């Protein structure tokens, strides 16, 4: 690992200030992506600004049909939260599928979203539920947040404070694990909103990261049944192809996981 300077700010404002002064600073929360990358000398931030202990970024609440989760809330806290389990059980279940138990003990929702790994699970929930990302500067709608592989709408130094999820009528997440890494080879989040609109978000499969499967959404808008997906054709040309799975196989998984998610919703 390269030399680095560690900072533990007392507030979000101080964190932003520290980062702005750093030559090449990075925020760290759970650190479960950043620290392995630094160990391999693939990243060498001059400064690390630790967000994980900021109380402003913690906590889960449910009010008026919205579940709000602080950015530094761990995957375990979300997975085991009574409020989340009750309001959006699919979101709690998704959090319980990320990485492994020790990763879930430390990894945070804010970190996962800011990193936007193409195989990460949270982006599927955020996009599938049409969540809103609240930063220290503004609100960003899910549809505008994910801009490509490992890139987001966040500006330099911008900090995710919390994420608010509208409680859907029903939702489900189906994940096909990449066997070695435990990331999603393909994960599909299907949500049916209170107004009846169906959103389908796919992670793991897209060549540009998480995306909404418009054709599946369309098929389901007429009839929310998994049979409706049979007729949809998923074009592999926009999908990832690597040693873990070809684009054609991922295209198949998008349909299979989408059908299973629809079946799970019932």
């Amino acid at each position, binding site marked *: 690992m390269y030399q680095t300077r*560690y900072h533990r700010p007392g507030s979000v404002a101080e964190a932003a200030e520290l980062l702005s002064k750093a030559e090449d600073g990075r925020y760290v929360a759970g*650190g479960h992506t950043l620290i392995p990358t630094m160990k391999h000398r693939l990243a060498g931030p001059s400064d690390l600004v630790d967000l994980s202990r900021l109380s402003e970024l913690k906590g889960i609440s449910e009010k008026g049909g919205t579940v709000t989760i602080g950015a530094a809330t761990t995957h375990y806290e979300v997975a085991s939260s009574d409020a989340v389990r009750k309001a959006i059980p699919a979101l709690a279940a998704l959090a319980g599928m990320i990485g492994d138990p020790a990763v879930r003990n430390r990894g945070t929702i804010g970190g996962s979203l800011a990193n936007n790994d193409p195989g990460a699970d949270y982006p599927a929930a955020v996009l599938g539920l049409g969540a809103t990302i609240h930063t220290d500067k503004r609100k960003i709608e899910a549809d505008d947040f994910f801009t490509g592989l490992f890139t987001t709408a966040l500006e330099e130094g911008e900090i995710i404070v919390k994420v608010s999820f509208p409680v859907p009528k029903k939702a489900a997440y189906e994940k096909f694990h990449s066997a070695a*890494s435990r990331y999603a080879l393909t994960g599909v989040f299907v949500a049916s909103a209170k107004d009846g609109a169906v959103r389908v978000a796919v992670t793991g499969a897209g060549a540009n990261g998480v995306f909404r499967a418009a054709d599946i959404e369309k098929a389901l808008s007429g009839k929310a049944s998994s049979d409706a997906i049979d007729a949809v054709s998923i074009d592999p040309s926009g999908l990832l192809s690597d040693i873990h799975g070809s684009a054609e196989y991922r295209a198949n998984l998008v349909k299979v996981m989408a059908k299973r998610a629809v079946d799970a919703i019932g």
Partner: protein
Amino acid sequence: MTTVGMTVNGDPVSVETEDRTLLVEVLRDQLALTGTHVACDTSQCGACLVLIDGVATKSCTTLAVQADGSEIQTIEGLAKDGDLHPMQAAFNENHGLQCGFCTPGMIMAGVDMVRRLGKDLDDETIRSELEGNICRCTGYVNIVKAIKAGAARM
């Protein structure tokens, strides 16, 4: 150099370390607690698990400075007054280890399972909860047995 203060296995310690130094390096190299192992560099194998403030954490994916002010428990701190922790004893009784290298992490994973899920663990739960712990020797059969038995006695 930064001064990091922690409680390790009940004892207050203070170490001077670079900010880039991992918690596992401080435990092993500065505190001579070599029971915590490193078996991968991609945060997947679980050999380095320690409890930080009671929560199982990969000490290879935690900077020592991040643990400043925390209470750390390592495999060396589990047995009390010479009596093995029930999870340690269960690994022996059920032949839950062979070469022993992954064992400290497996035992910590078992302890953390009980914290999160209680003492009554079925085989399927244990198998899926061991997603972050790799063993090449045992085929896991007896690790699952050991965690089940150890949990029941905690």
